[in-house]
């Protein structure tokens, strides 16, 4: 159920929206709701990914929040030219696999 709320927005932005809504023959309220949904979705993604990059959130925490699969998460990182939160130091400090795994010659 839609609930009313009040916000103050700059006059020039409001004028631009009103003009666009008139020209496009759109329903003003429905259009504003749609823009809010889209903007909120994009902003939420960006903020959560920023938290991931900073190491505040894990990949799965972001996936849970945004209802993404791990594959979707990776493709979103790619789309934004971002990388995993694994650091060079982590790669350098990573352990070796035990030698007993070495393939024996037949």
């Amino acid at each position: 159920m839609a609930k009313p709320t009040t916000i103050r927005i700059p006059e020039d932005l409001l004028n631009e929206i009103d003009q666009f809504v008139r020209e496009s023959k759109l329903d003003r309220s429905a259009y504003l709701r749609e823009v809010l949904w889209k903007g909120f979705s994009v902003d939420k993604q960006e903020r959560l990914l920023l938290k991931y990059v900073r190491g505040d959130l894990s990949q799965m925490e972001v996936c849970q929040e945004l209802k993404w699969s791990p594959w979707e998460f990776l493709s979103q990182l790619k789309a934004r030219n971002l990388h995993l939160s694994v650091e060079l130091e982590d790669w350098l400090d990573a352990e070796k696999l035990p030698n007993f795994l070495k393939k024996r010659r037949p």
Partner: protein
Amino acid sequence: MVRKYPDAAMISDLISKGAIKVQSLASAGFSSPISLHQGEEEALLLAMKLGRSLFATDEGKAIKAARFLRLPFIVTPKIVVELFRLKRISSKKAQGAPEKLDKIGRYSPEIIADALVSLMEEKDGKTDNHKDT
């Protein structure tokens, strides 16, 4: 599932073949030093309980927790280099993996470049001595 989640299908297959064992554990009482997703937290707990185990992850936060808990860890590019060193995979397969980890896995270019250097050193018979330098 195979088309949409090929990795999940592969894991499921390995479980049915017994190559991967699924363990259930009571995580009550354990809380990671860093907030993590349930799966990562349980993997950490399992590594602690099993002892002499290697915690494999691609999650920076989980690595921080592993460091805090003094758990040995490994990341995917290192697994590739190590599998090549241990002669479990061919040079061709090893060389192709970092590219996938870069493009699909989103590993940082610095790590990918270093992994490729390590692979070349292994191929040339030089030992990886990052930790000594």
